[in-house]
C-alpha cells in the first residue's frame, strides 16, 4: 500500500500543455468536421439525392415509362454488351500483366508499368478520337472497311474498342501493387511441393488476390458502363442503335426530357452506389482477413 508514497502528483501544467499540443482544440475539431461534411454534402450527397428526386419528379409511372422506352432498353442492352466484352478481356489482360511484371525481372519493366497506366492520363475525347482516326470514313482503314462493308465507327465495335482503351489499366493496377507486396514465397513453396504452374496459380495465387481482383473488375465494369466522352465521339448518337446509357442521358437531357434523362441516370447512379457498397465490403473483407 505504501507504493502510493512514491507516486508523484501529476504535473498538471506541463501534462495539460502536452495534451494540447497533441490534440486539436474542440472548436477546431468541430469546425473542421462541419466544413468537411458540408463540402461532401454539397458536392456528393446533394447530387446523388437529386438524381432520384428528378427521376421521380413526375411520379413513379412516368419514371417507369421512361425506363421502358424502346430507346432506353436498347441503350441498356448495348451498355451490357459493351461491359460483357470489355471487362473479361481487360481482366484477363490485368492478370497476365500483373504476373509478368511482379514475378519476373526484366529490362524495361518500369517503362511497361508506366505504359499500362497511359490511358488514365489521356482525355476521354482523345481516347475516342484515335479510333475515329483509325477506323473512321476518312481514317487509315476507312476505305478498306468500306469495301468489305464493315462498320466500326458509329457502331458497337467502335464503342467497344474505345471502352477497351479507357478501362484498360483498371484490373492490372489493382493487382500489381498487391502481388508485389505478397512476394513469391508461397508460390515457390507450391512449386517445391510438385505443383504445376497452372495449379500454383489457381490454388495459391488466385485465392490470395481474389478480393483485389474482384475490386479491379468492379471498377473496370463501372467505368465500362459509365464511360461518356470516348464513347460519345465514336458512337454517332444513333437512337436505339449506338446510344449507351450515358449517351441516352445526354440525348434525353438535350431534348428537355428531364424524366427520361434522370431515369437513365438513376440506373447509372444505382450502379455507382452498388459499386461503392461492394467496394466497401471488399475493403472490409481484405483488412479483416
Amino acid at each position, binding site marked *: 500500500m505504501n507504493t502510493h508514497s512514491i507516486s508523484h502528483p501529476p504535473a498538471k501544467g506541463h501534462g495539460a500543455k502536452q495534451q494540447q499540443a497533441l490534440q486539436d482544440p474542440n472548436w477546431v475539431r468541430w469546425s473542421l468536421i462541419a466544413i468537411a461534411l458540408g463540402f461532401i454534402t454539397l458536392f456528393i450527397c446533394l447530387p446523388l439525392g437529386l438524381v432520384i428526386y428528378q427521376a421521380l419528379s413526375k411520379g413513379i409511372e412516368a419514371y417507369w415509362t421512361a425506363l421502358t422506352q424502346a430507346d432506353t432498353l436498347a441503350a441498356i442492352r448495348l451498355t451490357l454488351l459493351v461491359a460483357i466484352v470489355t471487362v473479361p478481356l481487360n481482366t484477363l489482360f490485368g492478370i497476365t500483366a500483373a504476373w509478368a511484371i511482379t514475378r519476373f525481372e526484366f529490362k524495361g519493366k518500369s517503362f511497361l508499368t508506366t505504359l499500362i497506366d497511359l490511358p488514365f492520363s489521356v482525355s476521354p475525347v482523345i481516347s475516342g478520337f484515335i479510333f475515329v482516326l483509325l477506323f473512321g470514313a476518312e481514317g487509315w482503314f476507312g476505305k478498306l472497311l468500306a469495301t468489305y462493308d464493315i462498320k466500326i465507327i458509329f457502331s458497337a465495335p467502335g464503342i467497344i474498342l474505345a471502352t477497351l482503351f479507357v478501362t484498360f489499366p483498371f484490373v492490372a493496377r489493382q493487382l500489381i501493387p498487391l502481388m508485389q507486396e505478397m512476394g513469391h*514465397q*508461397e508460390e515457390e*513453396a*507450391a*512449386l*517445391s*511441393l510438385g*505443383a504445376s504452374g497452372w495449379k500454383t496459380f489457381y490454388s495459391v495465387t488466385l485465392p490470395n488476390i481474389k478480393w483485389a481482383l474482384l475490386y479491379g473488375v468492379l471498377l473496370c465494369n463501372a467505368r465500362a458502363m459509365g464511360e461518356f466522352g470516348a464513347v460519345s465521339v465514336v458512337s454517332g448518337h444513333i437512337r436505339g442503335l449506338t446510344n449507351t446509357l450515358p449517351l441516352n442521358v445526354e440525348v434525353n437531357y438535350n431534348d428537355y426530357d428531364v424524366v427520361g434523362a434522370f431515369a437513365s441516370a438513376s440506373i447509372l447512379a444505382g450502379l455507382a452506389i452498388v459499386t461503392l457498397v461492394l467496394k466497401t465490403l471488399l475493403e472490409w473483407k481484405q483488412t479483416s482477413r
Partner: protein
Amino acid sequence: MSIILSDISKNFGSFAALHNINLEVPEGELVALLGPSGCGKTTLLRIIAGLEHTDQGSVIINGENKTSQNVSQRGIGFVFQHYALFRHMTVFENVAFGLRVKPRHTRPSNEIIKKKVHALLDLVQLDWLHDRYPDQLSGGQRQRIALARALAVEPSVLLLDEPFGALDASVRKDLRLWLRNLHHDLNVTSIFVTHDQEEAMEVASQVVVLNHGHIEQQGSPSEIYDNPTNAFVSRFIGQTNVFDLDEHDNEWLRNVGIINANSTGRIAHVRPHDILIEKSESHQDATATLKDWQHLGALIRLELVKNDHHASKSLFAEMPKEQFKALALKIGDVVKLKIRHAHWFH
C-alpha cells in the same frame, strides 16, 4: 540420398554470389551452411532446391544429375525462411497440398492422404491444430507445420532456409533440439542455412562455412572449432583473441607463451578458454590487469588489459566459476597469463 555439387557458380548481374562451389553431402547427414549475410548460403540452398538456376556447374542428387530439372519435379522438401504457409488453407490442407497436386495416376486416395497428413501432424506434435489457419498459429507452430508440409511428399532431401531465424530465443532453443532428434528418427539428408554459429554447432553433424561465395571449410563441428583452416573460420566460429606479430610487442608475446618453437605465421588466434590465469604478487612479472568480468552462466569471462608499452584492445579469457572464486580476483588486480594453445595464420 547423397548430394554432390560440382563447380557451381552464380552471378547476379556483376555480383558473383557463388564461385566454383564443390561440395559433397553424404547420405543421412544434417548439414549446416554457415556464413555471414550475403555470403551466398541461401542462394546455394535455392540452387540445390531448383528455385534458382546455376550459371555453371551441376547438382547431383543420389547419382542423378538434377541441374536442369524444374523445382516441381526435383522431389525436394523446402522449408522457407518465413514458412510461406498458404494463408488461405487450413493446417491440414497445407500439409496435404503436396499430395493433392500429384498427377492423377500417382495421387493417393483421400483416405490415404488423410491418414498420412494426420501421421505427419502427429510427428510434429500439432495434430490438434489441423483445422486452424496459419495466422492463428505461433511462430514455432508455423515452423513445424512448414516442416510437416515439406515432409509430406517424402522428399529425398530436406532443405531449410534459416529455420529458426524468425523465432523467439526460447522457442529457438527447443526447436533446435527437436529438429536434431527428428532428423535422427527420419534420417533424411538435410541441409539448413544459418548465420548463427552456435546454432550450426548445436544442430548439425557437418558444418560448411561460406564466405564471399566460396567454401572456407567443411567438417564436423569439433573439427571446425578445434582446427580452423583460416583466420575467417577461426574468427567466425566462437570468440577469438587476435595477436598480430607486426603490431604487438613480441617480448610480451614470448613471455605469455604465444610465440614458441612451433610458430608458423604472423597472426595468432587464441580462444578465451586457452588463456590460463594466475594471480600475480608483484607488478614486475605481471603481464595483464583485470579490467572487468562478466557472468556467462557456468563460465566467467574476464576482460584483461596487457601490461606493455602498446595501448591496445582488451583481450578476453574464460574460466569456470569455481576457479574464479578460488583466485579471488578483483577489478584492478594484476595477473600472469599463460597461453595454452594458439592457431597460426598468415
